[in-house]
């Protein structure tokens, strides 16, 4: 029986006998593998940046907004119905086993000594930092009494701090927002980009009262809250909390039995899931397109192997005449296809990884090279070799020795 190493070397010899042909054949697989790796790297990169963008909004979080009210059969977008109020907020805080906060939001110019900066002003209730997973870097959080007494104090985001005060200590300094002086009592810890080019540190927090009256202005009712945040203690509690919150709100907002909610509760966990699965689908789709090119590479291998079998018919006959079994011929030709294919897989892996790296380095794309890239591309290219080498190899093995030897 032929030794395994001899089978291997005879396949290597056959491949190196036609270096140009072998390289071009494996190029098909190379391109396929490289495309699959580069595309999934880009897809996975997009996926993780979407995930971090959404999870940057806070975890284990429900966000309540007004709206989803019916106006003459037309369903309005969230935030358009009768606004949420402090009453809703308090009802939720009282009845739910969770931390609850609310906020209103406006845009304004913040003026410090000599400089100014246009940013987002968030008027917040107590517990806001806890519900949004925000941390204080310097100074302190608002005290509940400051919120109630509508004190004019602010906590600055890292970007705002840098723009207004540079490296100087902002604590205790004064800033003016809509011509009203505020005292800086704290600075938020940096959170960084949230994807979509959103800077989460470009923000100023202040007690909800002054922001409602000075920044957002007349449009708002005196007890209005634009968003309510409910933070569950664990992700398991989130679903029960969501239905409890809805029930409470239907009561406080006097939604009649059978009619639709005039508010909406968004579960951040499910939004995260939706975002994740959307990018995942996208990645799979592109990956499948790339895999088709791998298929084309496989057909190239089959084509060349069929040519090789025809060219080497007499060789096959001779090998059989001197003792080769059909199985030995089958294995030899399959091995040739597998070697050519996995050679393409190996180089495709290197090219794919370099491509992903180059896209990240020079194109600024967020790419994540999957950990399975190496084993899967080598395994997959070998499998392509087996599948597309099988038919030619089987044909070679089935040749009748006498007829094969007579062929010229």
């Amino acid at each position, binding site marked *: 029986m032929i030794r395994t190493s001899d089978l291997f070397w005879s396949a290597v010899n056959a491949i190196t006998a036609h270096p140009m042909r072998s390289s071009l054949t494996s190029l098909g697989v190379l391109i396929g593998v490289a495309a699959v790796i580069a595309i999934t790297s880009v897809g996975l990169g997009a996926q993780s940046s979407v995930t971090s963008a959404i999870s940057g909004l806070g975890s284990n979080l429900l966000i309540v907004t007004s709206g989803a009210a019916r106006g003459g059969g037309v369903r309005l977008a969230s935030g358009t119905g009768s606004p949420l109020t402090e009453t809703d907020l308090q009802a939720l805080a009282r009845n739910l086993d969770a931390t609850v906060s609310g906020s209103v939001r406006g845009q304004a110019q913040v003026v410090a000594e000599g400089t100014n900066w246009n940013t987002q002003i968030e008027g917040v209730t107590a517990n806001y930092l806890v519900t949004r997973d925000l941390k204080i870097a310097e100074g302190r959080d608002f005290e509940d009494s400051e919120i109630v007494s509508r004190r004019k104090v602010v906590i600055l985001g890292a970007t705002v701090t840098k723009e207004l005060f540079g490296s100087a200590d902002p604590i205790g300094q004064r800033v003016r927002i809509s011509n009203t002086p505020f005292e800086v009592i704290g600075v938020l810890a940096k959170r960084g980009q949230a994807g979509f080019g959103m800077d989460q540190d470009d923000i100023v927090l202040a007690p909800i009262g002054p922001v409602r009256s000075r920044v957002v202005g007349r449009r708002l009712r005196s007890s209005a809250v634009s968003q309510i945040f409910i933070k569950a203690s664990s992700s398991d509690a989130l679903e029960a909390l969501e239905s409890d919150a809805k029930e409470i709100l239907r009561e406080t907002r006097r939604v009649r039995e059978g009619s639709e909610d005039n508010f909406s509760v968004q579960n951040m966990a499910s939004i995260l899931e939706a975002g994740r699965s959307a990018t995942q689908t996208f990645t799979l789709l592109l990956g499948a397109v790339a895999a088709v090119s791998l298929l084309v590479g496989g057909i190239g291998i089959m084509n060349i192997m069929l040519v090789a079998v025809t060219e080497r018919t*007499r060789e096959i006959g*001779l090998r059989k005449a001197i003792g080769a*079994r059909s199985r030995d011929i089958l294995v030899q030709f399959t091995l040739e296809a597998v070697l050519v294919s996995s050679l393409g897989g190996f180089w495709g892996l290197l090219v794919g990884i370099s491509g992903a790296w180059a896209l990240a380095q020079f194109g600024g794309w967020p790419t994540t090279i999957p950990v399975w890239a190496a084993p899967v591309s080598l395994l997959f290219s070998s499998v392509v070799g087996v599948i597309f080498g099988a038919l030619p190899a089987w044909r070679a093995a089935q040749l009748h020795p006498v007829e094969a030897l007579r062929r010229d």
Partner: protein
Amino acid sequence: MMIKATDLTKTYQMGPNEIRALINVSLSIEAGEYVAIIGPSGSGKSTLMNVLGGLDRPDSGRYFFDGEDVLAMNDDALAAFRGSKIGFVFQSFQLLPRLSARLNIELPLVYAGMVPGERRRRAEAMLVKVGLGQRGDSRPSQLSGGQQQRVAIARALASEPRLMLCDEPTGALDQKTGREILDLLEALNRQGSTVLMVTHDLQIASRARRIIEMRDGAVIRDGAPQ
């Protein structure tokens, strides 16, 4: 008796016509014999050689080699039979052009599963035996026709077969070179190899101790040359 074949029959279907390549061929060959098969083109000489060498199966008949029923063997056993008991020499040499003379000679030993060192030693010995001791590294394309046929004979000898089957071994060679190849085969026969050889050349055939003459698929004469 090394070979005992009885009533071998083989028919080819060519469209509506039946071509009877072998018709009730019976023959016996003893170890150590040197037999020439002659006959006009198409008389079934190659077909007989292929059947005796286990390359082809007859439609009917019985065939025993060293007492073993060759026709009862499955394809794998038949491959092993060819590899160990038979050495083929073809008119067109059938060397693999990519391999050196030595590696061509080693090829039957590769399929026998012999380790590389042993194979190489055996191939070198065979090269010396056929008078090509220095040409082991040459490719077939670098050798003359006579030298190529010597390599092919060395390959046939490598696995120390019981029977050498030579189908017109001098058919592609000029007369002088052909003579040298025949001298080599005769020398090998004197050293103990059993040789069965197909030839068109009556002069060549007359050098054999036994001649089998075929016509239209049948043996019409079997015996010593007149």
